[in-house]
């Protein structure tokens, strides 16, 4: 029992890892500049936002939910913080970050309200907020952009600054992932997120505050999207109202690819990180090798499907395994 259990858990991460190694090898063969420190730095920096937000998405999906509004949240949070910087150049980047996170949190709370309080199905609730938030972004920005020169260097430093030669986004992503790992694996609330997703009714019976947990995850998702927003805007030194359109799907894809089950309750941080990295490589490294850009999507889709299907097949195999062991 124990062996098979641990076996199945580790299997997917292993598979992902192998897969990553293989494509890295291929890329390296096709372009020798792929595995240079500098390029890896680029790659990780570009993946940082995705990684940060997929953490939030993992929590949401663990509770059997989904959040389509994250792309719009990135846009509005980024836009608000950028506008503030434009008018008060002086303010410290820390404030901008906090501001952006705050905006994101508000959106998150709103989603949480709809899902946890009014029992609106997550996909619908967030589909609605997605539109509303996107529209609001246009309205508050009046359609204008905030350009590089209107941003203080401190603000842009949020994304471009470095610590010990590692760029801030990477550091933030790492910190958040570590913190998340600790939270989800070693703290009561974290485990209760799993519990709620794994068996909602049991959660009610054993006195877990299900609604509050659900509300919490959407709020956190919003906050992380807010953080993603400010990094995004600082990174590209330009705030637009159509920022990160369709980004929600990348985030969801990364999470699912990382083996977080849409049915809720199961998924591991290690898998999440690998999934994010894999998607990051697919997104950012394909320009390097001379794969025509038009193949990129097709490749992505196939990889995602393959990952999901292996997951199912492994599970089935394991069940058959368990049945054989059963005494008749």
């Amino acid at each position: 029992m124990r062996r098979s259990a641990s076996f199945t858990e580790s299997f997917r991460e292993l598979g992902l890892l192998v897969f990553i190694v293989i494509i890295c090898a291929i890329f390296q063969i096709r372009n020798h500049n792929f595995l240079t420190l500098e390029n890896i730095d680029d790659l990780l920096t570009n993946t940082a936002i995705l990684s940060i937000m997929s953490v939030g998405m993992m929590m949401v999906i663990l509770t059997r939910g989904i959040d389509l509004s994250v792309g719009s949240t990135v846009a509005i949070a980024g836009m608000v913080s950028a506008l503030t910087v434009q008018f008060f150049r002086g303010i410290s980047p820390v404030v901008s970050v906090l501001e952006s996170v705050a905006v994101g949190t508000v959106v998150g709370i709103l989603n949480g309200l709809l899902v946890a309080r009014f029992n609106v199905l997550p996909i619908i609730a967030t589909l609605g907020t997605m539109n509303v938030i996107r529209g609001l972004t246009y309205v508050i920005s009046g359609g204008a952009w905030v350009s590089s020169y209107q941003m203080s260097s401190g603000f842009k430093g949020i994304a471009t600054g470095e610590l010990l030669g590692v760029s801030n986004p990477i550091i933030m992503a790492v910190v958040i992932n570590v913190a998340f790992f600790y939270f989800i694996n070693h703290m009561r609330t974290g485990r209760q997120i799993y519990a709620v997703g794994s068996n909602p009714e049991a959660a009610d019976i054993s006195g877990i505050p299900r609604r509050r947990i659900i509300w919490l995850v959407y709020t956190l998702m919003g906050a992380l999207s807010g953080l993603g927003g400010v990094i995004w805007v600082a990174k590209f030194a330009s705030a637009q109202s159509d920022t990160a359109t369709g980004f929600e799907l990348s985030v969801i894809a990364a999470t699912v690819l990382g083996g977080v089950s849409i049915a809720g309750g199961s998924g591991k941080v290690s898998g999440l990180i690998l999934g994010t990295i894999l998607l990051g490589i697919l997104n950012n490294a394909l320009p390097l090798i001379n794969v025509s850009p038009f193949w990129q999507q097709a490749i992505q889709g196939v990889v995602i499907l393959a990952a999901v299907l292996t997951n199912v097949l492994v599970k089935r195999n394991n069940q058959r395994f368990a049945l054989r062991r059963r005494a008749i």
Partner: protein
Amino acid sequence: MRKFLIRAAVIVAIMAIALPVALFASGGKEQGGGAAGGTAKYAIVFKNTGNPYGDRQMGGFKAGIEEQGFQAILRAPDQPTAEAQIQILEQLISQKVAAICIVGNDKDALQPVLTKAMSQGIKVFSLDSGVNPQSRMVHVNQADSEKIGTTLIQAAYDMSGGSGDIAILSATSQATNQNLWIDFMKKTLAQPKYANLHLVKIAYGDDIRDKSVSEAEGLLQSFPNLKVIIAPTTVGIAAAGKVLTDKGLGGKVFLTGLGLPSEMATYIENGVCPYMFLWNPIDVGYLGAYTATALVSGKITGKVGEKFTAGRLGEKVITQAPDGGTEILLGPPFKFDKNNIEDWKKVY
């Protein structure tokens, strides 16, 4: 049940509120729409909303129309798709506008709706990013495509010191004007003078921020001794500027192309991009405005050789366009560098 009725009432109420809110919110943009039916209405449809370049262009158009005492309608879909533009054009047709000035998201996809407009006596012409000759009377070209090609190559030549690898970072590979310019660049490179410039790759950033950045980084990784990046698209050039700045490659790899002063100010000031070019979108729109009125008044019909006076821009003449149609040329691209960027970055 009663609860339900209440909610129902709430919804209808919200509808009633939402609509005025909508109108209020849009009050700034829409130019009195149906309100004053009297004066003739001239419409411009840009690629998508939330694009300052477009705002300037539409601004210029508005100015041009209003100084002639007419009414301007400024429209743009929220996504840069032809589908959305078709819907808007339909709405303009039902509003019986006098002329439509279209900045196309797709060369061919708008042909049906535009021909429909023309069949109803609406004067149709394209601006900046053109549509095919069958679906327009004339095209207002912001700058001579050939001139853009040669100028950019010349710029690369000067920056690189006459030899080395150069790459092009374009928008999407189906963007008509982009491809036209790239063709002229290639032609120019064929001349013996530029024999030592090697065009190593044409990358497509699809005018999407993150994609353009990845593509720019890809170029730098794949071609270590790259000398110049030419980005004839505002999004692409800004992305490339950002990448070069962050990597501290200013002075090693040079950047030029077509960009918005506001977006590029930083990179021109820090020397990553010694200089770049663009026409003045306000003038483009302004010229569009006078073309529209000229077409409506019948002063011009879109035939080669016709002349008309375009307000402060003086006299303009219709010439043969490379794509077989006719066009009106604004003039040579304008050069932005350290000396003038300071004044322009605030304008657009």
